[in-house]
């Protein structure tokens, strides 16, 4: 038997990075845009996700503003709020603040897992399903809980969570957050070139999308100022709706790309959401 051309089964990075990283990133960004545009359920899911996050942030900030009022000392400026909390420094207050932060982190991760699990299914050629996404996230409750406990004190970990850990959690049920992080880092090492290039590509696309949002808003504002009040209101509501949809789209697009990279790292093949005809299918 020959001893040449042997295959090292553990040599995953070589097979993953066989294609030029730039060509790979370009194809992946294109497919991510296509998925984000084609699947409306996914966009709705991302919209609900963002809406709940905004609600939570409102609740968090509102809570901090309302608490002094409930204590009979309403605050109107940031200085007054600072003074109130400096005056009422207590262990309980810190515990409540940490509790709220934990709740927010857990909720964020839960929703992110809901969206990511469905994005992976769409990458795999299936249709997105709202309920199935929630069920998947619920089945990872303990993993999400331990991960959220670990990252609650460190705000920047939210970015790590979104970029590398949550996509891994969609198929991994480990409750050890350090193991989770380690596995995510190992996967990231396999695709680090594409990952970094993709971040640059995403930032360029997001920059142009934001320019589009800003430009359209300037145009709407200009037209509104020249129109009768009723038309101006209609234009304004249209402008707000457009901005919100664009925001959801940006959020979805980022997640679709990150999930695509995750699939490439774990499966060893560039994912393709819309494959050619399946030769193994029955005629």
């Amino acid at each position, binding site marked *: *038997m020959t001893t040449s051309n042997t295959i090292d089964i553990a040599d995953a990075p070589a097979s993953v990075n066989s294609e030029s990283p730039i060509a790979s990133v370009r194809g992946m960004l294109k497919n991510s845009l296509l998925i984000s545009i084609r699947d409306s359920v996914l966009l709705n899911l991302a919209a609900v996700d963002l809406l709940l996050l905004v609600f939570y942030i409102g609740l968090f900030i509102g809570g901090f503003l309302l608490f002094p009022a409930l204590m009979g000392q309403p605050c109107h400026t940031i200085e007054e709020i600072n003074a109130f909390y400096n005056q009422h420094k207590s262990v309980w207050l810190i515990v409540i603040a940490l509790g709220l932060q934990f709740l927010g982190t857990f909720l964020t991760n839960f929703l992110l897992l809901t969206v990511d699990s469905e994005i992976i299914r769409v990458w795999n050629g299936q249709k997105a399903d709202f309920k199935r996404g929630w069920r998947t996230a619920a089945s990872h409750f303990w993993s999400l809980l331990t991960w959220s406990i670990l990252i609650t004190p460190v705000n920047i970990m939210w970015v790590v969570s979104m970029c590398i850990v949550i996509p891994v959690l969609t198929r991994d049920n480990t409750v050890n957050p350090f193991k989770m992080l380690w596995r995510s880092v190992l996967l990231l090492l396999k695709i680090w070139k594409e990952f970094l290039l993709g971040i640059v590509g995403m930032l360029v696309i997001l920059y142009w999308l934001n320019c589009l949002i800003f430009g359209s808003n300037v145009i709407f504002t200009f037209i509104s100022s020249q129109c009768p009040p009723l038309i101006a209101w209609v234009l304004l509501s249209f402008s707000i709706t457009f901005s919100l949809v664009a925001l959801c789209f940006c959020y979805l697009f980022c997640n679709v790309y990150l999930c695509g990279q995750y699939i490439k790292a774990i499966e060893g093949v560039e994912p393709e959401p819309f494959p050619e005809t399946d030769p193994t299918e*029955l005629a």
Partner: protein
Amino acid sequence: MNVSELTLNFSSGVPIYRQIVQLLSGKILSGALAPGEKIPSIRDVTAELNVNPNTVAKAYRELELAGLIETRRGMGCFVAERDDARHVLTDEEKQRHLDTLFASLVTSAGMLGISEQDVSDYLTAKHAASVKNNK
């Protein structure tokens, strides 16, 4: 063959397409899959295991190149319809399968906490015993 017979490990570090190649080639070479037997379509594997169609397609392409399976357009994928897949493999292909089997053995042993050296010693001892028995 049923898709549920394919068990994938998403946290092993071995790419999924390689795991599919290992599993199917193992079944074909061991005779668990008979020549001419139909193997699941890409769509079925994709839907059941939640993996990308390209991943399954790449695994099937590798198996086809190795001469272990054949695609009949419009009918599906089948285990190579020859006397025995073992006879049609070239030395290079046999070497590849041996590598795959060894890597799989090392991975499984690693999961049980057995080192690569222990696996090697075990194989040497087994081989010596086999030679002794044959004499």
